[in-house]
Structure formats: C-alpha cells, structure tokens
C-alpha cells in the first residue's frame, strides 16, 4: 500500500532535533507514542510505529553516521531531525540525517522465519521498518538531508 500524500490536511506537527546518541531514542519513542495516542491510533498500531521509528533511528546512527557522536566528531554528526506529523487519516514520521545515507531499496529484508532458521542475531531491523508501517520511503541527499518517511494509517 502506498498512501497518497497529496492534499493532506496537517492537524498538528512536532519537530525534534536530537543528537546522534542512543540515549535519545527514548525521548523519540515517547514523542511518537504521544502523537499516535493523540491521533487516535490503537495501542497495537502505535507500538508498531514506535518500533519502526526506533529501529530506523538506531539504524541511521549505526549505518548512516557510522556510530554515535563523540566530542571529536560532533561536527560530522549533526544528529537527527525528526518531524512527527498528524495529517488527515495518518501519522507520518520523517527522519532526516546528514550522514552518508544508505541504499534503502537494496537493504535486505530478513523475514522472521528465515531469521529464526539461522544463527544470526541481527538483521531484523529492516523487516520492522518496512513491514510495521503502511508505507516507508527513503530519499537520499535532499536539501534537508537524507529523508526516511514512515506512514501509518489511523484506521
């Protein structure tokens, strides 16, 4: 499903600027849950959106920035800008970064059944990012940075 993003009525939005640190994931998740509750998503759908956003942000810090920022590399790790949007019949979360980006379409999705068959303990993140939401798109290198947009329909 690819929801039509044209002619959306923005009911409310919040923007977070967070450093490239895993310790900030909690604040991002809490904000996602608050917006989802306000928009009327069921707790189950909100938990899926929460997990998709958390895995996305952790992936971006790890792969697009190559890890958390330190006092030495802060200039090259400007962090994440996160736009939380309640629009018409959906909740959208845009995650923008200024890292190296990655090839979103070519990222391998490991299905849970395959994941359980092998011994690899990592690799489920992309499955969650792409399947726990109704639409996931990635635009590298826009004027605002690399943009991962996750959309969850309210009903």
């Amino acid at each position: 499903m690819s929801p039509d993003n044209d002619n959306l009525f923005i009911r409310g939005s919040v923007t977070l600027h967070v450093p490239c640190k895993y310790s900030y994931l909690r604040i991002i998740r809490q904000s996602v849950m608050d917006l989802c509750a306000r928009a009327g998503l069921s707790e189950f759908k909100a938990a899926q959106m929460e997990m998709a956003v958390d895995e996305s942000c952790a992936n971006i810090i790890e792969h697009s920035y190559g890890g958390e920022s330190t006092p030495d590399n802060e200039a090259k790790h400007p962090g994440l800008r996160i736009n939380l949007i309640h629009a018409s019949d959906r909740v959208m979360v845009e995650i923008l970064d200024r890292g190296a980006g990655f090839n979103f379409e070519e990222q391998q999705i490991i299905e849970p059944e395959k994941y359980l068959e092998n011994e690899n303990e990592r690799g489920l993140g992309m499955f969650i990012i792409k399947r726990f939401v109704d639409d996931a798109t990635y635009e590298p290198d826009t004027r605002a940075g690399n943009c991962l947009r996750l959309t969850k329909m309210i009903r």
Partner: protein
Amino acid sequence: MRECSIDVEEQGDVDILRLNGSLDAYSFPRLETTLNQLRDSKRHRVILDCSGLEYISSAALGALIGFARRSRENKGDLKMAGMTPRIYNIVELLGFHKILEICDSIDAAMEKFRQ
C-alpha cells in the same frame, strides 16, 4: 518511559532477570553483558521477568533468542514471564513466541523448569 534496569536474583539453579524500563540500542550493551556473565558462569536456566518491560528492540530480542538456543544446548532454557499485551503483540507479530517459551508468571516459569 524509563531507562532499563536489569537485576539478577538467584533462586537455586535458576536466575531471575528483572527488566524494568526500555530495552533499546542504549541499554542493549547492559543486557548483553548480563547474558554473557550468566553464560560464562554456566548459569543456563533463566527466567526473564518482563512485567516492568516497556519496550524491547529487535537486537535485544535477537540476543535473548541466541541465549535461549545456547542454554538449550546445555540442558537449560530462557523463559519469559509476565509480558504485557503490548510487548506480547510485538513478539507474536515477529513469530518469536514460537521459539521463546512464554509463561504467565514467574511461578509458572519456575514450575516449567521443575517438570
């Protein structure tokens, strides 16, 4: 939403790991260290008290599955107890309930180990 605390309580040959808060990429190293310490000291029978668990990432779930697999090779197991519906829904959606034993309570998990 709180940061995750992990407390280990020994009850005979079973260790109860009490998780409180969110298990994400930030708290994951703490979980990994705790599981490695249990494995190194050959403690292979573990119950995870999930009643205070608010969030769990895919990496943390992967580490738990890895620990359960290795424990079973050593005649042990890792059982999850007291999961909230929100966490259970995610675990079920990923199909992990088929590989991790999930019990209603710590007492029920203890009883499973006694069988």
